[in-house]
């Protein structure tokens, strides 16, 4: 029942750009829309790959500490400047790591989008020459 009747999308705010996109009135000409779809799928795949790599790295760096301590219990007793290693890593150390991964991701994601935009521009330019 619900599957057939599209639910009304209340309070989803679409700007004019998004509406025209949905109605298929994007700035690219009609034959290029299929090409755009293919391009977008590759963009999505690239973005997802980037996100997953960053996520895996973040988990490997931060969440590996308990395993390390379970395998080598002597690590727990290590002191850094007189303070327990756990305090130094979890209290301070992980935060710069998280921030660096976040900053790296933001730059890389923007770079992927720039490359994609250039690809579309090139396709647009080719279509415009006809």
């Amino acid at each position: 029942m619900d599957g057939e009747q599209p639910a009304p999308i209340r309070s989803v705010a679409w700007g004019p750009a998004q509406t025209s996109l949905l109605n298929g009135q994007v700035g690219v000409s009609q034959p290029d829309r299929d090409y755009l779809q293919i391009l977008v799928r590759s963009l999505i795949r690239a973005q997802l790959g980037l996100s997953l790599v960053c996520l895996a790295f973040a988990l490997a760096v931060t969440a590996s500490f308990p395993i390390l301590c379970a395998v080598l219990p002597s690590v727990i007793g290590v002191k850094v400047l007189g303070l327990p290693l756990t305090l130094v890593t979890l209290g301070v150390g992980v935060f710069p790591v998280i921030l660096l991964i976040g900053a790296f991701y933001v730059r890389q994601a923007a770079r992927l989008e720039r490359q994609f935009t250039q690809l579309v521009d090139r396709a647009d330019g080719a279509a415009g020459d006809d």
Partner: protein
Amino acid sequence: MTEWVGIAAITVVMFLTIGVGARGVRIARTPADFMVAARAVSSPVNAAAISGEYLSAASFLGIAGLVFVQGLGSLWYSVGYAAGYLVLLLLVAAPLRRFGAYTIPDFAGGRLQSARLRQGSTVLVLIIGWFYLLPQMDGAGLTLQVVLGIPYWIGVVLLGVVVSGNIAMGGMKGITFVQAFQYWLKICAIGIPALALLAYAGHGSTANLTSSGAPTFGHPTAVTVPQAVKLVVKRPTDVVATGVVDGHADAGRHLVLEPGTHSIGRGSVLKFRAGATVPVRILLVQPSSPAWNSPFVSVGPDGAHPLAATYGLIIATFFGAIGLPHILVRFYTNRDGTSARRTTLIVLLLLSFFYIFPAILGVLGRLRAPQLYLTGNTDGIVLALPALLMPGPVGAALAALVAAGACAAFLSTSSGLLVSVAGAFSHDLLRGGVRSFRWCALGAGAVAMLAALLVENFSASLLVGWAFAIAASSFCPLLVLGIWWRGLTWRGAMAGVLIGGGGCCAAIAATMLGLARTGWAAVLLGYPAMWTVPLAFAVMILGSLASRRDRPADVDQIMLRMHLPDTLLKRTR
């Protein structure tokens, strides 16, 4: 004298918050409010607003208290609360902003074209919202109890009445600047006392941080017991007691507390020698916990499988922030997907900055104020610490600052949550409209108030951790798969939300009722995210594959809208 400074600070915060909020007349979070905000708010202000709403009583009071009582493994709460925003940045921030939904039910309904899924998600928003509201009320009751000396329930009722009344009157709408102000208030209220106390009392022996056993008094200490307590003594301890010990009235008598449980009368004074082992209030006794300086959390009297419990907590907090109902709405005040990413990165910076301070306070408490193990209350450590470490007017002023910050913490978070809960209730389940919203705000506030009276003895961080676990095992897979996978269907999503979220709720209920206290059962039910999150993902994927024909016809357009770079989107105008 001391009380008056605290009372003044709390009153000022209450009136500032209500006063600034009440300038808005319309009820909260109509699309128009956010359309306006979207044009006016810069990323740093927006990030401060998100952080201000996010930093709740659990962050402000709970983490330091857990570090003090249970050990450094509790720092996983602060790491997870911050890392949750990294996961949010990586997986959902920009596409979600481009999609344009205000709430998770909006996203579910719009992405998968199903009214039924939308209603199902609304119910879950209510459950998560209430779970998150409980510790706020709990924190309010406790703060007012410590600062004003009034009973716990009065504080709970006071916060409930102030917040729900204010929202019902139309104040405290999602004003970005109020929430941004709350962040800076909170960071000052925890940062200044933490640094001042660190400079004043931070030097000296660090023995209590590394000893695996119970902490000891660093110097001769006289402890006044403000209310009758039961203490657990591990080894024979010399004290000079004035007051009532184990039913005997003593006046300055020297005695030895033998290992076991002792009851101390109200108002008694116990004098301990330097180096004496600190007895622990029975409420704070950890039945069996891993070493204080280990990175593990534990559950149950046998403290079984601490490693598994730790990963349960890590999964819940890392993946839970994505699915919190009051967070998503803030993303709409970003101009576009790119600025949503920038804002999230700044949020990450602001949160990282904040979370250094609860750790400092918890550690300072163990180092320099071990008498709090006798008289304290897990979530009350932060409030009690300034006056203990720094007697005199400076300490009183710092204590007032902390109380004001705690007040800001539960006011801002509970307002944001109550608006989300009441909005979801009136908008998605009832007919909507201003009248219905008002009644829902009052009703939701009353329910949270009643429930908060029942959970006085649960730590704020524990309750918030559970809210994260439910969000991580229901909305997180819904949003992540909905954004990245064309194949998600409403049937698959519904099955995943029901089984993952439902399983998580059932596990938490079983833990609260005390059905499983030992072994693997206690770990799997107390930290359910470790199995409910993968389960929810698996059910959603399999369910969607089994119902392929339910894929929305316009899924390609929706994916395009979520992932097309902002520059291309804008050019089409």
